[in-house]
C-alpha cells in the first residue's frame, strides 16, 4: 500500500461519511483523520452517533455516503472480518462475549483467525501463553478457564478489550470500555491503553467519563446529533462554547 498521497501518514481517514436509518440521519458529512500513533478521544451525548461511526469504520454497518480509508487503502465495501485482519479492532459497547467458550478460548479466536491470517503461525503452546498474557493484562488470568456467564459486567468489558487487543491491531477503538468501572480500575485500563499506544497502536477512546478522556486523549472530537462540532486539543475543545452548550449543558 505504497502511495504518494500526502496523507499517507494518516492511519485512518474518513471523508464526508454519511449514514441514515430510514429517515433518521445518524451521521452527516463526518470527516476525520487519525494519524499513526495518535490517542484520540471521541465524545458526544447519548445517541449522537459515536457507535454508528465505529460501526461504519469497522464494517459492521456500511455507510451510504463518503469513504473510509485505512492504512493507505480504501476499505469501503470490505467485510468486517477483513478490516479486522487489516488491523482495525474494536470492543463493543455492550459486551458480546462468545458465551459457550471459556475466557481463554474467547481470546484465542482473534489469534486463530486474524493473527494467523496474516501468515504468522504460532504453536498451540505459544497461543496459550499469549492468551494468558492478554488476560493477565486485564486482570482476568485467574478466571481463564471460567465461562463468560460467571463474569460481572465490568469483567466482561475487560474481556472485550483483551479480545480486541488479541488481534494485534494497528488501530484499537475502545467503545465505552470503562463504564461502570471503579476509580482504580479506570486507571488500570488507561495505563493499559497508554502502554499499547507506546507500542505503536493508535487508539480511539469513546467514553463518557470525562476524567478518563481528558487524561488519555491528545486530541478530542465531539459528535452531536450526527455532526462533528469540534476537533482539537482537549483544553481548547472543552472551552469551545458550542461544545459546552450542546454537550455539557447550558
Amino acid at each position, binding site marked *: 500500500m505504497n502511495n504518494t498521497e500526502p496523507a499517507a501518514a494518516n492511519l485512518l481517514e474518513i471523508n464526508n461519511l454519511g449514514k441514515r436509518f430510514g429517515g433518521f440521519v445518524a451521521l452527516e458529512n463526518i470527516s476525520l483523520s487519525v494519524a499513526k500513533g495518535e490517542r484520540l478521544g471521541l465524545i458526544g451525548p447519548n445517541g449522537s452517533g459515536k457507535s454508528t461511526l465505529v460501526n461504519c469504520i469497522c464494517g459492521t454497518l456500511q455507510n451510504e455516503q463518503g469513504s473510509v480509508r485505512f492504512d493507505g487503502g480504501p476499505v469501503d465495501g470490505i467485510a468486517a472480518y477483513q478490516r*479486522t485482519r487489516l488491523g482495525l*479492532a*474494536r470492543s463493543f459497547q455492550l459486551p458480546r462475549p462468545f458465551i459457550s467458550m471459556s475466557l481463554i478460548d474467547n481470546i484465542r479466536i482473534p489469534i486463530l483467525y486474524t493473527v494467523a491470517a496474516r501468515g504468522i503461525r504460532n504453536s498451540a503452546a505459544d497461543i496459550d501463553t499469549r492468551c494468558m498474557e492478554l488476560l493477565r493484562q486485564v486482570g482476568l488470568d485467574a478466571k481463564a478457564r471460567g465461562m463468560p456467564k460467571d463474569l460481572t*459486567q465490568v469483567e466482561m468489558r475487560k474481556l472485550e478489550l483483551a479480545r480486541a487487543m488479541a488481534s494485534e491491531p494497528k488501530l484499537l477503538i475502545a467503545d465505552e470500555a470503562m463504564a461502570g468501572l471503579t476509580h482504580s480500575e479506570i486507571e488500570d485500563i488507561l495505563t493499559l491503553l497508554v502502554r499499547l499506544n507506546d507500542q505503536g497502536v493508535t487508539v480511539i477512546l469513546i467514553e463518557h467519563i470525562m476524567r478518563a478522556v481528558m487524561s488519555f486523549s491528545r486530541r478530542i472530537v465531539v459528535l452531536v446529533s450526527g455532526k462533528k462540532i469540534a476537533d482539537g486539543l482537549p483544553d481548547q475543545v472543552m472551552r469551545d462554547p458550542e461544545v459546552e452548550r450542546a454537550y455539557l449543558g447550558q
Partner: protein
Amino acid sequence: MRTPTFFLICLIVAALVFGAAIAIGNDYVFFAGYVVLQYVVLSTAWNILGGYCGYVNFGTAAFFALGAYSSVAIYKLVTENDFFRMPMPVLILIGGAVAGIVGFGMGYLTLRLRGAFFAIATLALAVVLQTLVVNWDFVGGSRGAYILRPESVPIIGAYIKYLFLIMLLLAVIALTTARLIEHSRLGYGFATIRDDELAAEASGVPTLKLKLIATTISGALMGMAGAPFPYYIGYLQPDSTFGLDYAVNSIAMPLIGGTTSWVGPLIGAILLGSLQQIATVTISSAVNLLVVGVILVAFVILAPNGIVGLVRHYWQHKPDDIVGRRKVETDAQGTVP
C-alpha cells in the same frame, strides 16, 4: 486423541458391531440396525450446521432425498442403457456431491437469514424439491420408483448385510468428520457463529464462508446417507422420502444427545432410533413419532443441554451452578442508536 487413532477405534467398534449383528443370526437385526445407523449419519450431519453453527435446518429430508434420487436416476440410466452396474460407494459419492452442491447453493441463498427465517427457508427447499421430483417422470414421479437390488454380494452374503456394513462405515466417516471439525480452527469458528456473529466478524472470522462450508459438509453427509436408501427400501416413493420423520428425527436426536459435541448425535440417534425400532415391532409403527415427541419435550424441559450436558453437569458440579446462573445480557440487534 489424534484423528487417525480415533478413526481406527471407530473402525474397531464398527467391526465389533458388525460381528455382533452376525452373531445374533437374524436378518431383521440388519434391517433395523440400518435405520439406526442412517440416523447416526443424518443427526451427525445435521449437528454440523445446527449444533456447531446454530443454524436450524428443517430440510434434512430434502438432502436425504437428493442422495436417494440421484441413486434412482443413475439406476434408471444404467438399466435403460444397459451400462455396467455402479458400485454402491460410487453412488454414495455422487449422492453426496449432488447434496453438497445443493447445500452450498442453499447456504448462499439463505444464510443472510437467521433463526426462524432460516428454518422456514430450509423447509421451503424440501417442498420445492419434492414438487420437482413428483413432476419428474424419469425417476418415477408421484408413482415412485422400483429398484431391483442384487440378492447377495460375494463374501458378505445377503445384500442387506452389505448395506448395513456400508452405513456402518458412513457413520464412522461422519463421526470422524464431526470430531475433526470440533477440535479444529474450523470448529472454533463455527462456535463463534453460534454465539455471536457480529463479535465473530470483529474477531476476524469470515462468517459467511464458514457457514457455506458448514452447509456443504452437512448437506453432503445427508446426501451420502440417502444414496443407498432406494436399495434398502426397494420401492422409493416421494411422500415417504421427503417425510417429516427425517427432519424431526435429525433435529430431535442431537437435541436429546447434546449438540455441542460429536457424541451427542451418536447417543441420541442410537437411543431414539433403537426405541423407535422397538416401538415399531412391539406396539405399532405410528407410535414412532409420538415417542420422539414425548422424549423431546421431556428433554427440552428437564435437560436442555441433552445427555452430554447432563453428564458434564454432574461430573463437574460447579458450585456457582448451585448458587444460580447469571444470564449473560447481550443485545441481539447490535449497537444501533
